[in-house]
């Protein structure tokens, strides 16, 4: 009889402690949402490298009793007031709490930028420096969205009462650069991390759908048909000096942008120097993949029901779309200005590539141009503003960090 009692007690204890009984409807909704994101990543191929770990992290964090992530350790009132107690995190935190230290201390996003730098060819930008202006113009989306979030806050409605820091973090979605968005949000509004990361990566995957209608609406057929001249050849010496010069200029003026821009340019210097092939291979493959896994899972883990299932998330998703649209429009309109000033030599479609999303946005410019003239090959011209957008969004993040951080 004793054996049966122990058996029944154990079973009832397992049932009592299982997640099924303690799961709230909010947690169930978040788990279902994570399934949807997994579907989008696996079947629809929406930025799967990040969306898949994000979705899985979201699922893990919402399983009651698993105790993998404790958002209050990082975003609770005490953590906000007195700073994160890392000793507590290391001693009593779960797996994802420990991994989240890499996000909280802003280590992961710059390391991702190191890998991106190793994979990026800045040649088209060096060959056509004016592209940098398009990369700057496309950052309009960040600041217009910041303004939008602030104006919503001024309405006085409680559920959309964004702080300055939250508005800045929402605005950075317009930079169309995941690591930059995570970098800034970690510092300014960690409680919105899940919503902002999901919105940023979802919209980045939707760039081919969001951008073309705006590009066509703002340009004439004649402008879209402009065939741009061949880019000049860039010497190896220029490619080597470029990352050093950019780092010195940007880091001296906006030190807050130094972690992102510095790592991006270090990776690029590795690539262009041609003397550290082993480091290049590691940074762009193993290191970047390891960081991507950890970053994705822990960013997903921040999307707990408590922080994610709010009206603010819905507003962030809408504002994120506004950010992408305004960034695209800003780039294209500045492209039109350059078209006029250059006497019709610049195709304004390359302006939309100024929102980062490398190389997706440049491919969209190419595709839209090719629809007007199939022999028009804009891709390399669009890569200039595209990589300029990466620098531009990192600088914008640095400025916002400087103002509100």
């Amino acid at each position, binding site marked *: 009889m004793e054996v049966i009692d122990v058996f029944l007690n154990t079973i009832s204890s397992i049932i009592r402690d299982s997640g099924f009984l303690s799961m709230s409807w909010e947690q169930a909704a978040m788990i279902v949402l994570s399934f949807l994101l997994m579907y989008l990543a696996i079947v629809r191929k929406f930025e799967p490298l990040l969306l898949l770990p994000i979705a899985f992290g979201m699922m893990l964090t919402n399983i009651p009793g698993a105790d993998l992530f404790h958002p209050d350790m990082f975003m609770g009132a005490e953590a906000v007031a007195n700073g994160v107690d890392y000793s507590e995190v290391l001693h009593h935190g779960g797996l994802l709490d420990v991994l989240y230290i890499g996000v909280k201390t802003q280590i992961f996003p710059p390391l991702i930028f190191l890998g991106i730098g190793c994979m990026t060819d800045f040649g088209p930008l060096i060959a056509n420096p004016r592209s940098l202006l398009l990369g700057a113009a496309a950052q309009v989306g960040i600041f217009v969205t910041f303004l939008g979030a602030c104006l919503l806050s001024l309405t006085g409605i409680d559920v959309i009462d964004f702080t300055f820091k939250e508005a800045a973090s929402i605005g950075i979605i317009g930079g169309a650069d995941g690591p930059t968005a995570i970098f800034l949000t970690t510092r300014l509004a960690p409680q919105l991390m899940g919503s902002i990361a999901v919105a940023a990566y979802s919209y980045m995957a939707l760039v081919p759908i969001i951008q073309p209608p705006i590009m066509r609406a703002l340009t004439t057929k004649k402008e879209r048909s402009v065939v741009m001249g061949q880019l000049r050849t860039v010497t190896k010496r220029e490619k080597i000096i470029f990352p050093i010069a950019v780092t010195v200029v940007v880091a001296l003026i906006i030190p807050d942008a130094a972690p992102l821009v510095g790592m991006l340019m270090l990776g690029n210097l590795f690539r262009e120097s041609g003397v550290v092939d082993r480091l290049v291979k590691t940074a762009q493959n193993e290191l970047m993949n390891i960081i991507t896994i950890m970053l994705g899972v822990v960013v997903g883990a921040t999307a707990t029901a408590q922080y994610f299932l709010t009206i603010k998330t819905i507003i962030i998703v809408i504002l994120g779309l506004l950010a992408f649209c305004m960034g695209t429009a800003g780039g294209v309109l500045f492209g039109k200005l350059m078209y006029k000033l250059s006497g019709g030599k610049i195709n304004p479609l390359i302006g939309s590539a100024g929102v980062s999303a490398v190389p997706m946005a440049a491919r969209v410019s190419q595709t839209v141009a*090719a629809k007007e003239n199939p022999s028009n090959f804009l891709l390399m011209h669009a890569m200039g503003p595209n990589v300029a957008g990466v620098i531009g969004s990192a600088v914008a993040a640095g*400025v916002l960090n400087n103002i509100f951080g």
Partner: protein
Amino acid sequence: MNGLSRTMAIITEEFPAENISGMWATVITGLVVVFIILALLIGVLYLLGLFGKAMNNSAKKKNAKNAEKAVDLTPAPKAAPAVIPVEDTAADEDDEELIAVISAAIAAYAAADGTQYVIKKIKRTDRTTRSDWGNVGVRENTRPF
């Protein structure tokens, strides 16, 4: 970024309603600073370009001198070379690198073929259409869409 060496944030109010002018100032400052920094980088890139050109010119002069020396030392070719008209650039006569690439490609072909060729003319046939190889390249680069 750990806060040890950071100065205070410029805007310390929490909500936009507490500092409406700060909201507008952020938008204007942000855009102006982003444009100024990227404009500065344009200046740096132009300087880089000028520097690169100057270095290229001096390298070209050095190469030309070396080539002159080499021509003096090389005996005249024995067999009369075949003549091949190459159709490509007319407008970009000054594009020496392109000519060098085309010459190198023909030289590689000639080495396999065993015949010597003299390039007499390089002329572009049509700027508005793309070769099949070009079209394949475009398709490859835009395939996801």
